[in-house]
């Protein structure tokens, strides 16, 4: 029997605290107009909880949509570059909080490309017969790794989580073609230099704890890699561009999305964009967007969906997924994060104090 891995459940977790562009105007020298025209982002979420907490909420929604219990899951893959802790993995915390006692659990770090990497790994584990029901999660708390007085990076990122359930099936659905790639030789154009065991544990420079990015160079490489990898997976799947029903790209910058869509010669209605609401949530953007696409009726039974991403590493990934018959959830969950009594700006008070008031007047 040939085994395939079908996406049978989907869910997301959106932290309640909203940081708007006008909130950012108070923290750093920027403006709503500047951010909107350059990135397409209007607001982003700041999480008051940890990555594993967001991952659990997204997973409970995905499990409900698949009508499964946590104990039905035999593997948890958590794509993240902002795990709660270095030890243990955030996936272990998710496994415990879900009570997914039959599941092995591990984190997978390919930064913003991580969820497609994890989808590929999960699919291969199902196809090879080793696992039957896999949670593939993307969850991130990028706000932890930002300097909110640095307008070049603070405006771009946000927090959130998305998850899907993969189940073994004999139907020829799920991943049809996939490409994952890495160019570690230029890793320094997008990195956090001081968080990890290479960092200075005792007296690091504050800027080492924040994202460093050569924006134009990352942009150029992202547009090229996402466009070319997407074209290749569409061709490998034996599809023409007309047969692509929906491109769900990593949401990093609306101009990267537009350029990728132009390279593929896709019409706007073939592309799903929700960056205005969340910014770049790294590995979480695609499962969050997929969940919203399903909720908005943008996915038809049997649809050909293209995923494409680019991120730190540098990594890139693209995939074609053939959707199954069911586009409605089997069940729903009321899982949600605990309430928060602080605004997003209040959650960032320690960050702004750490990075200093001086940056604002530069």
């Amino acid at each position: 029997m040939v085994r395939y891995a079908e996406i049978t459940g989907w869910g997301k977790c959106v932290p309640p605290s909203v940081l708007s562009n006008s909130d950012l105007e108070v923290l750093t020298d920027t403006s709503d107009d500047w951010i909107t025209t350059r990135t397409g982002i209007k607001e982003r979420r700041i999480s008051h909880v940890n990555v594993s907490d967001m991952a659990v909420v997204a997973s409970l929604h995905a499990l409900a949509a698949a009508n499964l219990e946590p104990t039905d899951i035999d593997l948890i893959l958590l794509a993240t570059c902002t795990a709660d802790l270095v030890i243990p993995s955030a996936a272990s915390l998710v496994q415990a909080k879900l009570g997914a006692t039959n599941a092995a659990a591990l984190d997978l770090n390919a930064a913003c490309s991580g969820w497609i990497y994890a989808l590929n790994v999960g699919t291969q584990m199902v196809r090879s017969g080793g696992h039957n029901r896999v949670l593939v999660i993307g969850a991130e708390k990028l706000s932890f790794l930002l300097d909110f007085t640095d307008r070049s990076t603070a405006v771009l990122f946000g927090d959130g989580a998305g998850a899907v359930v993969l189940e073994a099936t004999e139907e020829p659905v799920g991943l049809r073609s996939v490409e994952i790639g890495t160019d570690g030789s230029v890793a320094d154009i997008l990195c956090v230099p001081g968080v990890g065991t290479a960092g200075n544990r005792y007296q690091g420079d504050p800027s080492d704890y924040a994202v460093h990015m050569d924006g134009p160079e990352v942009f150029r490489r992202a547009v090229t890699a996402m466009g070319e990898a997407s074209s290749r997976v569409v061709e490998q799947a034996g599809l023409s561009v007309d047969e692509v029903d929906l491109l769900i790209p990593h949401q990093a910058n609306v101009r990267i999305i537009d350029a990728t869509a132009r390279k593929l010669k896709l019409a706007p209605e073939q592309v799903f964009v929700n960056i205005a609401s969340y910014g770049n949530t790294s590995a979480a953007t695609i499962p969050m967007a997929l969940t919203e696409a399903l909720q908005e009726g943008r996915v038809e039974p049997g649809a050909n969906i293209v995923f494409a991403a680019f991120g730190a590493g540098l990594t890139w990934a693209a995939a074609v997924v053939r959707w199954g018959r069911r586009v409605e959830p089997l069940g729903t969950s009321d899982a949600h994060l605990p309430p928060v009594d602080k605004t997003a700006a209040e959650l960032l008070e320690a960050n702004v104090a750490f990075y200093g008031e001086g940056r604002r007047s530069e």
Partner: protein
Amino acid sequence: MDRSEIENRIKNLLVSELGLDESRVSAEATFEEDLEVDSLGVVELLMALEDEFGVKIPDEEAEEIGTVGEAVDVVEAKLAG
């Protein structure tokens, strides 16, 4: 391809790819000041030029491009080999 054709094609790219107002695009216009093209816009322009003319513009030559006319100069030199 003569210089006026290169110039016309570059002006068309600026309008279609970067959404610039045609009336503001002259040979003397500077990208950053006159046309208000930001750093990502410059990257978009370079990639569009490379696609349009089938040339490769290295970073050090790209840094010399400040005006529309200078973009024409670089592309003309590339096409002349």
